[in-house]
């Protein structure tokens, strides 16, 4: 027996769960102002999330998937990407979407069951939310292929969950991205649960980062509650991709603090102690501790920020609620570039109703 290949999976963390510095900070994180910018986004995400749930509970929004606990992954990814990169996402990346220019009103529209919520113009080329798990991994490969073919210094960033790594499309896409050395970054947000299925039931793989080995690409794990670690890994992966170095898979370890969606009741299958434990590890507190320790943050700033975020979210909610319902015939709009004759008849049928 000869050893013919060796692999390692590394883990990175800069701020530990107590907000203490665990490793020398990367350049960008040495300026607290940069971290404050990230923190502000994370607080806005949390305010948005709370509002969305409140709207849903009062019958003013459809089923909603909370990103509670995953703010650091969102902020790390959203802040690292360039404007003309392309983002391909699941339903739990609304935070990244905001940072890229999707308005909160549009996000509410989406969850309100209105197609206009995916019609956002900024970011112009980002894909719509992908509900069918992992299907968008192959879309990311295609988008990245187009960028590479045209010699553009752009990157496709594809976010997915731990559950998604079990799906064939994930593997097919990852493998192809490796085969063509494409400019794509896969971010696996390992929040430990896929609805009621815990990470350990999903796969015997010790880490999800090691899924990259099958595709012959680089995989690494980061503390997904440490926004610095996420951002740093993204910076490196994006730079590598832009430089022709090919794909990277980043497993971001975090925790889904909420129910799967508002239609779910996680107490049915999840130990409350585990959730309580996870709360100690949540990403906002740790960053706030660090910023406070740096002298860059205090209670006054915190209160002002919370107020600002709540107002912003409230205004967006109102704007959303004020939008008139779409016209019934919108179900025929944009189905094709030009509505075929056969469908014009059906449209008339529908209007005749």
């Amino acid at each position, binding site marked *: 027996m000869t050893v013919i290949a060796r692999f390692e999976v590394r883990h990175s963390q800069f701020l530990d769960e107590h907000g203490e510095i665990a490793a020398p900070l990367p350049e960008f994180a040495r300026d607290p102002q940069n971290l404050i910018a990230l923190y502000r986004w994370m607080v806005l995400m949390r305010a948005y999330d709370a509002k969305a749930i409140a709207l849903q509970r009062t019958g003013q929004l*459809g*089923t909603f998937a909370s990103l509670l606990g995953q703010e650091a992954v969102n902020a790390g990814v959203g802040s690292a990407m360039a404007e003309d990169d392309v983002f391909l996402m699941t*339903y739990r990346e609304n935070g990244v979407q905001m940072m890229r220019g999707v308005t909160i009103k549009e996000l509410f529209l989406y969850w*309100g*069951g*209105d*197609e206009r919520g995916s019609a956002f113009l900024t970011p112009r080329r980002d894909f719509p939310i992908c*509900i*069918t*798990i*992992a299907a968008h991994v192959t879309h990311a490969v295609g988008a990245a292929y187009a960028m590479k073919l045209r010699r553009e210094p752009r990157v496709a960033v594809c976010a997915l969950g731990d*559950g*998604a790594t*079990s*799906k*064939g499309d994930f593997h097919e896409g990852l493998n192809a991205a490796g085969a063509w050395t494409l400019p794509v970054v896969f971010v696996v947000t390992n929040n430990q649960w*896929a*609805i*009621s*299925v815990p990470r350990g*039931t*999903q*796969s015997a793989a010790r880490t999800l980062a090691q899924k990259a080995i099958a595709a012959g690409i680089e995989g690494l794990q980061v503390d997904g509650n440490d926004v610095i670690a996420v951002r740093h890994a993204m910076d490196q992966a994006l730079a590598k991709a832009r430089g022709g170095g090919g794909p990277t898979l980043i497993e971001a370890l975090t925790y889904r603090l909420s129910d799967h969606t508002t*239609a*779910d009741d996680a107490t*049915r*299958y999840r130990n409350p102690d585990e959730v309580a434990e996870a709360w100690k590890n949540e990403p906002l507190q740790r960053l706030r501790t660090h910023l406070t320790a740096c002298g860059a943050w205090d209670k006054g700033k915190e209160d002002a920020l919370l107020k600002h975020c709540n107002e912003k979210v409230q205004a967006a909610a109102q704007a959303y609620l004020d939008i008139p*319902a*779409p016209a*019934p015939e*919108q*179900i*025929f709009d944009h*189905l094709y570039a030009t509505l075929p004759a*056969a*469908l014009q008849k*059906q*449209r008339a*049928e*529908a209007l005749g*109703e």
Partner: protein
Amino acid sequence: MAQITLVEAVNLALKREMGNDPSVVVLGQDVGIDGGVFRATLGLIERFGRERVIDTPLAEALIAGMSIGMAVEGLKPVAEIQFAGFAYTTLDQMLNHAGRMRHRTQGRLSCPMVLRTPCGAGIHAPEHHSESPEAMFAQIPGIRVVYPSSPRRAYGLLLAAIRDPDPVVFLEPTRLYRLFKEEVEDDGNAFALDTCFTVRDGTDVTLVSWGAMVHDTLAAADDLIEQGIAAEVIDVATLKPLDMDTILASVARTGRCVIVSEAARTCSFASEIAASLAEEGLLTLLAPVQRITGYDVVVPLPRLEKHYLPSKRRIIGAAKKALEFS
């Protein structure tokens, strides 16, 4: 006898058959401790254990494919696909393998599996959660497609599906899961898998439907009778193989037929029935057949889905139009 909902009837049939037959296993996403996102598998894991009530990784082609492997090896898997919108990745396995195993081996092996999935719109669900894929499955040779519309039929047909020696796709209308209750006796009696149910007798027009739309069709028939029109209502329920005889016999009496289904129209199961009428029932037809179906558009998100689903008004309009011919 208890009054139970359709989803409870599904649960009851699963419990019954898992108790009867140790080779029955249930698998799918969240079917274990969560009891399935609609609670169709509630209580099974407590009663039958983790080995027979299997939470799978998130992979639908796997769920279908491993069900085939299990069935060939002598188990009777009942797989749940969480929503029909995620069932399209099972088509390859169902068509290229499940439906062929017996024929391909000339009877040496067989594939007694059930693929259950909730179907249909009208529950204000997110995208991909309101699909009606019955026609895709109905195209597949070697399989059966069943689509109950009441608790009693769900119970009797699911028992039949599990006991059937061949693969069965079992579609469950989410809109009806908890809409109403019915007395269901847990007597272990299975229904036939190739007979339509005439759920209301009438002489003027035949209304044919399946799944959740059966209820809108019955509601339309209620209104019609007040207007002096007696509609016969057929719940197809066992779509493939299709019991066309019951439909033809009814249309032979009424001379008029409206087919009501929420799936998009093109190549739908409504088209199949209309085609068979054009072929075998033409001489008895007194009016054109009408398909009152979903439009050939993407099932809309919640805000517009009611404009997509065939309304009672459309059904009534079609029935009346059929009666204008003489």
